[in-house]
């Protein structure tokens, strides 16, 4: 159990990402799918931030521009903002759909299997 490296984080991210994908494909209702999308975005965030820490020795040898190693963290902030907005719009639609028509199943005709 050596020191923790970039790979460990990437593995963690990958596992969470796959769990998110499984969640999306196995669920039918809008809220469930939305939750799984959040999982995927989150998994990507782990990767982005992990790199910030291990930036001066990336897997691919490169000459780093100054402070590019922080880009991942900045990107992660943007992703969180985006997740918030997407959730807000999605929940508004879901709520409205439910209020007016009484269902949140989005998958009547099996049309949106990924």
């Amino acid at each position, binding site marked *: 159990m050596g020191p*923790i*490296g*970039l*790979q*460990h984080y*990437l593995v*963690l991210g990958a596992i*969470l990402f*796959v*769990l*998110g994908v*499984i*969640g999306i*494909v*196995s*669920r039918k*209702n809008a*809220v*469930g799918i*939305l*939750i*799984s999308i*959040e*999982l995927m975005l*989150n998994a990507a*965030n*782990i990767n982005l*931030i992990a790199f*910030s*820490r*291990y*930036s001066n*020795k990336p897997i691919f040898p490169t000459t780093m521009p100054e*402070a590019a*190693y*922080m*880009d991942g*963290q*900045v*990107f992660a*902030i*943007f992703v*969180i*903002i985006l997740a918030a*907005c*997407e959730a*807000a*719009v999605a*929940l*508004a*639609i*879901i*709520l*409205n759909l*439910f*209020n*007016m028509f009484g269902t*949140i199943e989005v998958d009547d005709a099996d049309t949106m*299997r*990924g």
Partner: protein
Amino acid sequence: MAQNILFYLAAVMAVATTSMVVITRNAVYAVLYLIMSLFAVALVFLSLNAPFLALVEIIVYAGAIMVLFLFVVMMLNLQGQRGDEATKRPTRRQMIVPGALALLLLILIVVSLSAGTPAATNAALSDPKLLGELLFTKHYLGVKLSGIILLIGTIGGLHIGRGGSIPSTMEKPIDDVTH
């Protein structure tokens, strides 16, 4: 070593809770597990010396977004439609895509683990000040775009969330979500 312990703790917790998110058929539980998962991921961020992101994760993600989720799910429950999943399990056919993807990523994991473990550096980047500076210098366009996204999200939520209340000619207005 402390980082090791922190990482494994957080990682196990994250994987476990996330699995529960996917497995459970109860929407409220799913959201609650997701919140736990987000806390675990925040711990992962901490282990990466990114305290600012860890806080943002907890405050914004777990605190605001997830509470919104919870609110909606509970409201749906209140009105008789449970946000839960139908009882039927996914069929084998539906599991092909994630299965294949999981396999693909497994290969990736093996390959990248065999590439060796670089040592951790960049201790300095726990500094939120640097992050702030970067946000408003190098990435100011991103901040601007995030602002636009937030604005659009607000307008969109407001517009669509207006439901059937305006204009009055529309069918079946909802006056109260709890009726």
